[in-house]
Every structure is written in structure tokens, then in C-alpha cells.
């Protein structure tokens, strides 16, 4: 492990992830990708900083923001695009979609169930420990997932068995449309420490910081020193999923205006609680919407912009151009295939 991060290669990975997600959003808006769509935009620095330490044979267990880690872990872009387009030539024959991407060749598995990446990574970690070749397993999940019992059970099991695992908790401070602080007691650090895990907190938008922290965690796991709980503060740039009603209200004044009348009417509607209780509810909803709106306008939150600022402008531009061309080429190749979808 070199002591200094290769910012160019990290930025290159981040661009690949971002452009893939932007392309996916476009395909989704055009109706060519159906179902829900959870983008990982805003998580690129965290994913890149961790994935840079993985070698062939290391395993990856991820949540439903699965495309970026698969991209960073070296899964073929055309196969991913074909999968999301429901093409028989996709990574999983068009049968998985973005929430269930699976690549046995890369030991990489996604899940659409909140928290499910944590128990599975313990199994990957156990296999690595039994194989004894210094391999590691990494899980990604959000801060909302730490309230799932299966995540807590997994932290305990990994800790007592000293599994070669890195749990990466992407702390975006939201659990779908609920603010995490209103549903998570005790704080993430204290909770993981309670299981005897070393806890490292890092600014998940700072790719160099993530790279250093993840490097130590992965190195410890490889050397048999057990698991680490890595908390990376990230931004959720596109809401919980595309079409997130909260984001629509937060971004679109027309939607917001349309929502105000029924909300205010709700305060007066039918028998129920007294006025002070109703006004408190209105206040809490307004605060949630305001927090989502604030998340939209706060500057300097985009990890790509932050990383770009560390590079020479011409260098960054060249990397952007190169990766845009790569992503566009993969999409064109994918669109050339036969797409299985109903009219």
C-alpha cells in the first residue's frame, strides 16, 4: 500500500460512477428502466476510496445503491447497462435489475432489503478467513440500516469471530423520508464500539481521507486483526429513489404549492386531535421538507467537485472526457443489443 492516494485514478473512478448514474437516471426518466431506482450519486468518494484497496478475490456485499460499487469493483459497464435495460445479455440476463446485481466472478452481491448486506458480508468474511489467503470482504449500507436487528447481529458475529470484514456505513442522515436522528438512539459510533469494533469516522466526500481510513481497515482485516466499522458522512444527492415524493416537493415549487393546500386543510379536517397537536404535526412535516430543501441548496457537498478542486483543471477535464466517452460507448454498445421489454 502506497502512503499517498492516487487522486487521478480515484477521480477517474468517481467520474465513471457518476456518469453511469446520470445515464441510468436518463434511461429511467425515459421509461426504459422500470421499477424503483436508487442512485448512489453523492457516495462516489466513499465507494472509490474503499474500492481502491480491493484485489481480485476480495468480496463485496452492497445495498440497493449497487451500481457505483459494481462499477468501481471492475464489473463491465456494458453488462451493467444491459442488465438495467432488462436485456438477456445483461450481467444477470436481465433478471436482476439494479437492486439485485450479482456477479459471482467478482464475489459481488447486492440486495434490495435494508441491512441485508451486513449478514452476507459475514459469510464472505468467514470464507476468506477459512481460505486463509488474506482476502477481505466489504459491506456498504446506509445509516438507516443500523436499526435493523440483522445489522446489529452481524456486527457482533464479525467481532467475536474476528472476521476480515470492513463495514462501511454511509451516513447520509436520512432513513428514506425520516431524519435518522429521530429514529436512531445512541449514535453510530457508540453503537459499533459496544460490539468491540474499532470505529473510524471520516468525511465521506473527501476521497483522500476515505482512502487512508479504508486502507488501514482493509490492511487490518488482511492481517487477521478483525473487522472495522467505518462511518463515512455522505450526501444523498437524488433522494431515497428517483421519484422520491419528498424530493419532488423539495425541488419543485409547483409540487410544493400543490401540497400546501391539502396539508393546511388537514389541520382543520374532521374530528381528531386538538389544534396544538395538529399544528405540531404541520411543523414537523414542514421541518422535514425544509431539511430536504436545504440539502438541495447547500454548496460544496458534491464529492466530485471537491476532488476536482484538488487536481489541475486540465488533468480533471481530460479524465472527465475519457470517462464520459467510456460510459457513452458502453451505453451505445448496450443499446445495440436486443432489449427485452414490453411495449
Amino acid at each position, binding site marked *: 500500500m502506497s502512503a499517498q492516494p492516487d487522486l487521478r485514478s480515484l477521480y477517474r473512478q468517481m467520474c465513471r460512477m457518476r456518469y453511469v448514474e446520470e445515464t441510468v437516471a436518463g434511461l429511467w426518466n425515459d421509461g426504459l428502466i422500470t421499477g*424503483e431506482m436508487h442512485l448512489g450519486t453523492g457516495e462516489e468518494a466513499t465507494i472509490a476510496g474503499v474500492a481502491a484497496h480491493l484485489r481480485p478475490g476480495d468480496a463485496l456485499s452492497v445495498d440497493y445503491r449497487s451500481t457505483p460499487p459494481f462499477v468501481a469493483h471492475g464489473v463491465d459497464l456494458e453488462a451493467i447497462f444491459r442488465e438495467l435495460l432488462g436485456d438477456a445479455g445483461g450481467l444477470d440476463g436481465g433478471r436482476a435489475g439494479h437492486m439485485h446485481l450479482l456477479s459471482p466472478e467478482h464475489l459481488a452481491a447486492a*440486495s434490495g432489503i435494508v441491512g441485508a448486506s451486513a449478514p452476507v458480508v459475514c459469510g464472505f468474511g468467514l470464507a476468506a478467513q477459512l481460505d486463509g489467503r488474506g482476502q477481505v470482504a466489504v459491506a456498504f449500507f446506509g445509516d438507516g*440500516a443500523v436499526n435493523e436487528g440483522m445489522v446489529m447481529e452481524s456486527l457482533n458475529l464479525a467481532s467475536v469471530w474476528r472476521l476480515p470484514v470492513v463495514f462501511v456505513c454511509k451516513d447520509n442522515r436520512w432513513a*428514506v423520508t425520516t431524519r435518522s436522528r429521530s429514529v436512531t438512539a445512541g449514535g453510530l459510533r457508540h453503537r459499533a464500539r459496544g460490539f468491540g469494533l474499532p470505529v473510524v469516522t471520516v468525511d465521506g466526500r473527501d476521497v483522500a481521507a476515505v482512502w487512508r481510513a479504508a486502507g488501514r481497515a482493509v490492511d487490518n482485516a488482511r492481517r487477521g486483526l478483525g473487522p472495522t466499522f467505518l462511518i463515512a458522512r455522505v450526501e444523498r444527492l437524488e433522494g431515497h429513489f428517483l421519484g422520491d415524493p419528498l424530493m419532488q416537493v423539495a425541488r419543485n415549487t409547483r409540487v410544493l404549492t400543490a401540497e400546501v393546500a391539502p396539508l393546511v386543510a388537514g389541520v382543520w379536517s374532521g374530528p381528531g386531535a386538538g389544534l396544538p397537536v395538529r399544528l405540531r*404535526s404541520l411543523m414537523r412535516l414542514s421541518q422535514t421538507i425544509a431539511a430536504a430543501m436545504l440539502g438541495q441548496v447547500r454548496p460544496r457537498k458534491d464529492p466530485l467537485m471537491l476532488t476536482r478542486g484538488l487536481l489541475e483543471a486540465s488533468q480533471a477535464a481530460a479524465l472527465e472526457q475519457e470517462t464520459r466517452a467510456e460510459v457513452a460507448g458502453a451505453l451505445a454498445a448496450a443499446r445495440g443489443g436486443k432489449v427485452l421489454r414490453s411495449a
Partner: protein
Amino acid sequence: MPRTTFSQAIELALSAAMAEDDRVLVLGEDVQMLRRSLFLRFGTQRVRNTPISESAMLGTALGAAMAGWRPVAEIMFVDFVTVAMDMLMNHAAKLATFSNGRWRAPLVVRAACGGGYGDAGQHEQALWGMLAGVPGLSVVVPSTPADAAGLMLAALHDPGPVVFLEHKLLSQDWLEAVGGHSRARAALDVPENGTIGEVSFPPEATPLGQAALRRPGTNLALVSVGVGVHRCLSAAATLADEGIDTAVLDLRTVSPLDREAVTELASSTGHVLVVDEDYTRGGLSGEIAAVIAERDTGARFGRVTCEGTIPYARELEREMLPNEQRIVTAAHRLLGRESRQAASSQRAR
């Protein structure tokens, strides 16, 4: 009667019950946002956001129900109920028997279910067969706004526990939330008569265990629940054009099952075709086969079901879920009228 959407109908029943009975609570992930009109009207004490902790949520709802409250626990999608299965299967469902009938848990578990919008088999399952197979659980699956309100009211009045499943293709709230509705080109086969319809005000309860004959017929009985009922009605119209007089029975509740209605229709038509979006094995369709066999109806039996894990690709998903074409083909086979097209395509294989 006012025309109401499926989602509004459920809200109507819930708000009526909450206004009438202070012990009715709503708890679940994001319910203060998802059910914001209830939240505004009844406040934080009675409409409670839970952490993403299905097991704790269902267990809390169960304990509160045992202590005299009437909670509605909202598990977003029924697929996620598996995370909390112990609380539902080993505890809520067992309470009445283990207490020798002295203790009941008037608990409603509300969840969205069903597929047809491209989310694949971890978010699109029906699971009512598996749930209905557990003694002590009632399972309801409305197909119209009137029954959505009526079955929610009945569930709230029942000594419980009741699992209330709303199909996402019928629910505007869910269709918008999963982003399917907002995009013109994401063509979804949404049955219009299921998404909007007449609902009396105040809503009336639909008794549990009572099927509804949606269309009379003498040659063939299609038996279904949820969105399947609407697929059956389309297929019945097509079959009627061919001279096959087809009845459609909407079971409305999977448990308790209206065995009398099934038996009667099996005897009168002699041909029962079950259309079930749930899995083939160990579920509703097999149970109906058992009913018509045990009661010596002599009726022939067929089924159109979900044979495996629902794939993501829209075309594969369409083939996996019951659709009008599959129903018509299965009806022909059941009646011994194999269509020429089907016969020739079989030869081609």
C-alpha cells in the same frame, strides 16, 4: 356514492376508525410522510414513525395490541414482513390458541404487495398464500376501492391479527412512490376499475371470509384476488365472445377462505381456473383444488400462477405474472378447446 381512489379509500376507513376509537394507532417507517393527512389530524402520538426495524415494529404493535390498543403496523412492502416473521408467525398468530382464547391481539399489519412495474422478485411478491397458511392469521386482499375501505374497517374491528395487503398497481400512492406513474413511457397494465370506484361515506365494512361474484357464468369459474380479479374480468369478456360463459369470483380474503362460494361455483360450472399472482406451490391455488376435491364437486381444475422468482426484465416479468393471454389459454385447455394457435405453436416446438 362519491368516486374515490383505492389509496383514499383506505385512508377514509383509517381516519373514520381513528376518529371513532382513540386506541387505533398507526406505526411504521415514514408513515408521518406517507400518511401525512392522518399525521396532521391525529398527531405524533397516534401516527408514529418507526426506525427501519420491522421486527421491533411488529413486536411493539403486538405488545400494544395485547395491552388494549389497536395498532395498524405498516410494513412498506409485504416482502419485508419476512424480516419480522417471528413476531407475526410465532407470536401474533399463536396468542389466541396459547391463551385458550382468553387473549387476542387486535393488530392489523398493512403492506403493499404485488408486481407488474419492474421491481423484480424481492419487492413484487404476493406472499398471501404463505401468510394464509399460518393458523391464526387472517389475510385480506381487496381488488376495488370499496373493498379496500371495507376490508380495512373489518380488519380494524376484528379481534385480529389481520394482514391487509394492497396491490401496488391499484394504489396511486405506491405507484407514484416507486416512480412508475410519473413517466409516460413506463407503460404499466393498471386496471382502471380497481384504482378508482364508488365508496360509500361513511365506508361500510366488508365481512372477512366472504367472496364476491364479480361476474356470473355457467361454463367456467375464474377464481382470484387483487389485481388478478381484473385480469380475470378481461379474460372472461374475451372468453364470452367465444361463447364460453365465464364467472369471476373475487375471494377478497385468502384466510378465512369462502369455501362455500368456491364449492357452489365449482358445482355449477364444473370447471375452476384459479388465477393467483402468488407462487404455485403451497398456496392459495392448491388450497382451492383441495376444497373442490374434498367437497366432491367433480369439477375440473386448472391454475395460472407465478411459477418462480419474478424476473426484472419487463417481458419476462409479464410472462411470469398471470395475464389475460395466459388465462385464456389455460381456460381453453381446461375446457378441452385447445386453440388452433396454441396447437400449432406446440407442434413447432
